[in-house]
């Protein structure tokens, strides 16, 4: 019975892998030798970011928790669901909240927004757990210090993505959370109107840093949370931050390979 089902499947598979289309895409033999297995990793634009070889102990689930992989998976899932949400969501004061409600009530299933929301919460958690794991296994030590640094920036980007996305539903929770959160930017050294040293930036009697040109204003596009803020956060959330994150992720994965593979003693 086994062979009756698998036999034709194997035949079709063999036919496909012997075709010219297949050999034009995969320019190496089947991964049955160590050389071909290495070629699989190196001749593929996605896989070449991975280490060619990994120690079995280094990829054990109870060692890595797969937290980096889960974080990346969640990033992809959030990109996909976010793209679908962009078909319906309009980042204007007039429509934003109504569109979010419509996404739950006017669209079949109505869970796309929940997937995005819960996925985002999960990503913040997994990215912290990933950091914890890397710390506990000492994987930040040389030669992996640089990648630890990249990872910290990616952590901050994840939090910023979470922060900017928080405003988009444009409900009371969102508006006041961003009001409170962005108030911290007032205390930026030099560039925040209430921050240390900013009072020393004067030209005669004129204060160079005021509430109309400090860091908080750059964030909000206004003196208080309003339409310009919604648009800024939307563009950052959907385009700016994901682009930077994707770029740094490529560097992050590439360095995993260059720094001796998924962590473990070198």
């Amino acid at each position, binding site marked *: 019975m*086994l*062979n009756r089902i*698998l036999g034709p499947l*194997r035949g079709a598979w063999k036919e496909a892998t012997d075709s010219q289309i297949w050999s034009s895409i995969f320019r190496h033999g089947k991964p*049955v030798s160590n050389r071909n297995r290495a070629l699989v990793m190196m001749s593929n634009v996605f896989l070449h970011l991975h280490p060619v070889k990994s120690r079995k102990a280094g990829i054990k689930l109870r060692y890595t928790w797969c937290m980096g992989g889960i974080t990346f998976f969640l990033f992809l899932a959030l990109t996909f669901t976010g793209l*679908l949400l962009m*078909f*319906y969501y309009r980042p204007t004061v007039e429509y934003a909240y109504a569109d979010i409600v*419509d996404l739950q009530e*006017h*669209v*079949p*299933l109505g869970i*796309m927004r929940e997937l995005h929301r819960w996925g985002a919460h999960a990503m913040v958690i997994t990215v912290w757990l990933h950091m914890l794991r890397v710390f506990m296994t000492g994987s930040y030590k040389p030669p992996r210090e640089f990648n630890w640094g990249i990872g910290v920036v990616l952590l901050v980007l994840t939090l910023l993505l979470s922060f900017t996305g928080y405003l988009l539903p444009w409900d009371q929770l969102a508006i006041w959370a961003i009001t409170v959160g962005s108030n911290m930017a007032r205390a930026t050294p030099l560039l925040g109107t209430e921050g240390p040293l900013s009072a020393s930036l004067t030209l005669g009697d004129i204060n160079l840093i005021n509430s109309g040109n400090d860091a908080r204003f750059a964030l909000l596009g206004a003196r208080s949370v309003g339409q310009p803020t919604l648009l800024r956060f939307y563009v950052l959330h959907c385009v700016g931050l994901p682009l930077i994150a994707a770029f740094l992720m490529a560097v992050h994965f590439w360095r995993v390979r260059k720094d001796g593979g998924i962590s473990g003693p070198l």
Partner: protein
Amino acid sequence: MSENPERPPAASGSSGSSGAAPAKRTPTERTPVGPKIAGAKRAAPKKTGAKQVSRREFPFLIVGWSVFTAAMAMGLTAVGRFLFPNVLTEPPSTFKAGFPDDFSIGVVDTRFKERYQVWIVRDEEKIYALSTICTHLGCTPNWLEAESKFKCPCHGSGFYATGINFEGPAPRPLERVGVSLADDGQLLIDKSRLFKFEASQWEDPASFLALT
């Protein structure tokens, strides 16, 4: 058959309480099974070189891939359905356009062009409604009062107030839409019904409101 005499003592020794069962499970059925599996296991890798799936793994493979395929199919269905909302914000295809007396003879009424994409025209004996979609490539012509014609800005097609084309690339007249009288005496315009001149559908009484 030569094995039979040897086997019964062993079978009865293992399960002496049930006398009928050993007779049914004849040793000739059982013994060949072992060598068959062993032979298949040894021979198959030589033939294909591919990794062999064991009998124990097989059900898990089937169930696993079935669940995966089902999940992907459901996900794709949900995503496909997501693109088609349950609620539209478009104006309805049927609407009331006021009373027949609101329209004057020989005037092309452009009030409903923006929202409903129809012109309503009254002549001596009837009221009819023209679709504002140019029959060339679907642009929206303008009613030029001074020249008494519809002129399409895209490629210059021209239509009379009746909808008949007379200049430019448009291959056929503008289409008319359904006109009837609602219960309250207002005009009821039904954009879901289209009437083509070239198909002689303009004579259909549903395409105009006769004024006697």
